[in-house]
């Protein structure tokens, strides 16, 4: 008797849990057209992270609204070891024509799936392995970090600027370096202090790391973490009368800190998905590596899609004048707009990673007048000379 009751209870609880799990799985469909493409999206995080996966999903919704011939499916929070199973399901059961795998860790499973299903297409985000039917794509934001750095350097009063980093991998180190190079161009005396939280998504760790940096005297904060936690810290201190300038990351975060957010980097995966899916539809798809920057409109400047720079800080930025080799004396606001314009024309017109660039041990890494190659940027593992400390091993 007792045993039966236990079984009933367990089943009851499991059913409840299952109901919630299944209710969470989304499935959206479009009316059927003559020629149709079905695209499956695999996300590593929850859509609700307000960072990486959220941004991809904004892109997915954008293309789905744009193309009447497109049907999309998604699965979120897929552990990196589990992607093969989800890809199989998308191809075999859902009959997807193309699968987008949006995390670096899905790389090998995506390539294997390409061999297994030669008549389907696969797009892997942030990886470097391509094959006949497997392409790669990435929206890179380092240019925007540089522009944020110009602002942070101009605005800081303590000459101590903080950065909350997720994992010490080349992508994040590259962004910190770009940020530091911007700071250096606006304010050669300012130093950058870094705290690592060893997590892509952990609002409370990011918050404590930001608090630690503020306690240490930093009055400007940038970060790589998929929540607005650092912004909230900046806003709180600003409200209490101690201005802390912050820079949004990945999603429009200005609303979380209207008095603190100066600008930020925004990504538009929508334009990338639009191109990729259009190419597939038109039959012009190729497996070339898509590495999109400001010039392709994938990387955008701003803490919101409306303002490139929070209007609250425009006057302050205009009041700071710096001297740069190619433009002479110029106020920081105009410098940022000029550089952004140059970046939009292409990396040959202006790029932050043009030497001379030395690391913080004094070693010259990029010689004078040379632009860093993509390979160098993808493997960067040192701090430039105005960052304090060492990259953790």
């Amino acid at each position, binding site marked *: 008797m007792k045993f039966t*009751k236990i079984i009933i209870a367990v089943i009851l609880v499991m059913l409840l849990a299952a109901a919630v799990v299944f209710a969470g799985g989304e499935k959206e469909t479009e009316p059927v057209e003559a020629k149709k493409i079905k695209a499956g999206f695999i996300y590593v995080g929850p859509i609700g992270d307000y960072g990486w996966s959220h941004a991809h999903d904004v892109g997915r919704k954008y293309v789905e609204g744009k193309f009447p011939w497109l049907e999309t499916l998604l699965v979120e929070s897929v552990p990196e070891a589990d992607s093969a199973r989800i890809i199989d399901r998308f191809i075999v059961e859902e009959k997807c024509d193309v699968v987008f795998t949006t995390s670096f860790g899905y790389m090998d499973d995506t390539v294997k799936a390409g061999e297994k299903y030669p008549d389907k297409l696969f797009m892997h985000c942030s990886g470097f392995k391509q094959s006949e039917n497997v392409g790669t794509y990435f929206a890179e934001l380092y240019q925007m970090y540089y522009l944020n750095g110009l602002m942070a350097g101009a605005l800081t009063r303590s000459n101590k600027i903080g950065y909350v980093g997720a994992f010490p991998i080349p992508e994040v180190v590259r962004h910190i370096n770009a940020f530091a190079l911007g700071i250096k161009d606006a304010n050669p005396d300012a130093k950058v202090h870094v705290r690592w939280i060893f997590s892509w998504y952990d609002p409370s760790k990011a918050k*404590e790391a930001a608090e630690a940096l503020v306690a240490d005297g930093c009055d400007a904060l940038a970060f790589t973490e998929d929540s607005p936690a650092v912004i909230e810290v900046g806003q709180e201190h600003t409200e209490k009368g101690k201005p802390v300038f912050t820079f949004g990351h990945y999603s429009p975060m200005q609303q979380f800190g209207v008095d603190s957010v100066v600008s930020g980097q925004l990504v538009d995966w929508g334009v990338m998905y639009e191109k990729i899916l259009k190419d597939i539809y038109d039959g012009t798809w190729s497996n070339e590596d898509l590495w999109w920057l400001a010039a392709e409109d994938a990387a955008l400047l701003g803490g919101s899609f409306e303002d490139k720079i929070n209007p609250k800080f425009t006057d302050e930025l205009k009041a700071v004048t710096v001297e740069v080799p190619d433009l002479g004396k110029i106020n920081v606001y105009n410098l940022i707009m000029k550089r952004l314009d140059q970046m939009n024309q292409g990396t040959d017109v202006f790029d932050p990673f043009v030497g001379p660039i030395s690391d913080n041990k004094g070693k010259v890494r990029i010689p004078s007048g040379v632009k860093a190659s993509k390979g160098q940027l993808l493997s960067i593992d040192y701090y430039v000379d105005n960052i304090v400390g060492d990259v953790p091993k």
Partner: protein
Amino acid sequence: MDSILISVLNRTLVAGTPLLLATLGEIITERSGILNLGIEGMMAVGAVAGFIVTLATGSPWLGMASAILAGILISAIHAFVSISLKANQVVSGLALTMLGLGGASLFGRPFIGRPLPVKMAPFRIPILADIPLVGKVLFNQDPFFYLSLILGVLLWVLLSRTRWGIQIRSVGENPAASEAQGLNISTVRYICVLIGGGLAGMAGAHLSLIYSKSWTEGLTGGRGWIVIALTIFALWNPLRAFLGAYLFGCIFVLQYILQPIGIPPNLLGMMPYLATLAVLFAGGLKKGRRYLHAPAMLGEPYTKGER
């Protein structure tokens, strides 16, 4: 240096408050003999309920109240399954965690990325707040902090100084004897589990209304498990829960203060669990005396009239 000290102390109290609230709830639950491993889920539900209601009504106090209510409601599932159905409490508690986390992210989805329009202002205690150092840290905190202090002391008085407290503890230690005294075991346990749920819900509301002022998935960040460790660390004593909650809160805050001198944050992240293990070891070494004071019937379902 002064500002770092103030910041550490201040952050310790803020980070420790949700731990304290949820631990107090788990202490009263476990004292009555019910093990509830679903703290993480109850906190998540409280956090999202508090956030949604605050957003809709503009009142963080209503938000806090509904978080408590949400915690009570979801803990009622555990109470029903483990008390009335006498099912395995570990399984039911774990299921509650998953149910709570899943439900919270489902209902919270439309609210992701929305800033909180109204904020709960810190409660400044006049005169005392002007004391240097201590004043800034202790007497200018959010209302949750003061409530958690009051609740902690109240719970201690309740458990160790009142007749009700003796009844709750005796239900956890020897339900058969308590029943012989005329107590309704189920009723006492139901009340304790629901109080525990309410406190966990309140802890969740602290996270979404005070700590991060927004709702994002994964907001609870494993605090529910730290609370279970803390309950053991506190030896089921509300006063020791203060020590534990602020100690663990401090460790959490120190992770990033100490990073520049080369202490990896992951090492400090392990500390709460290591500290709990140390308490368990100490308990195991002290033979003869019952050191741990774990309620004797913790996790054991009770059937009326059974010996």
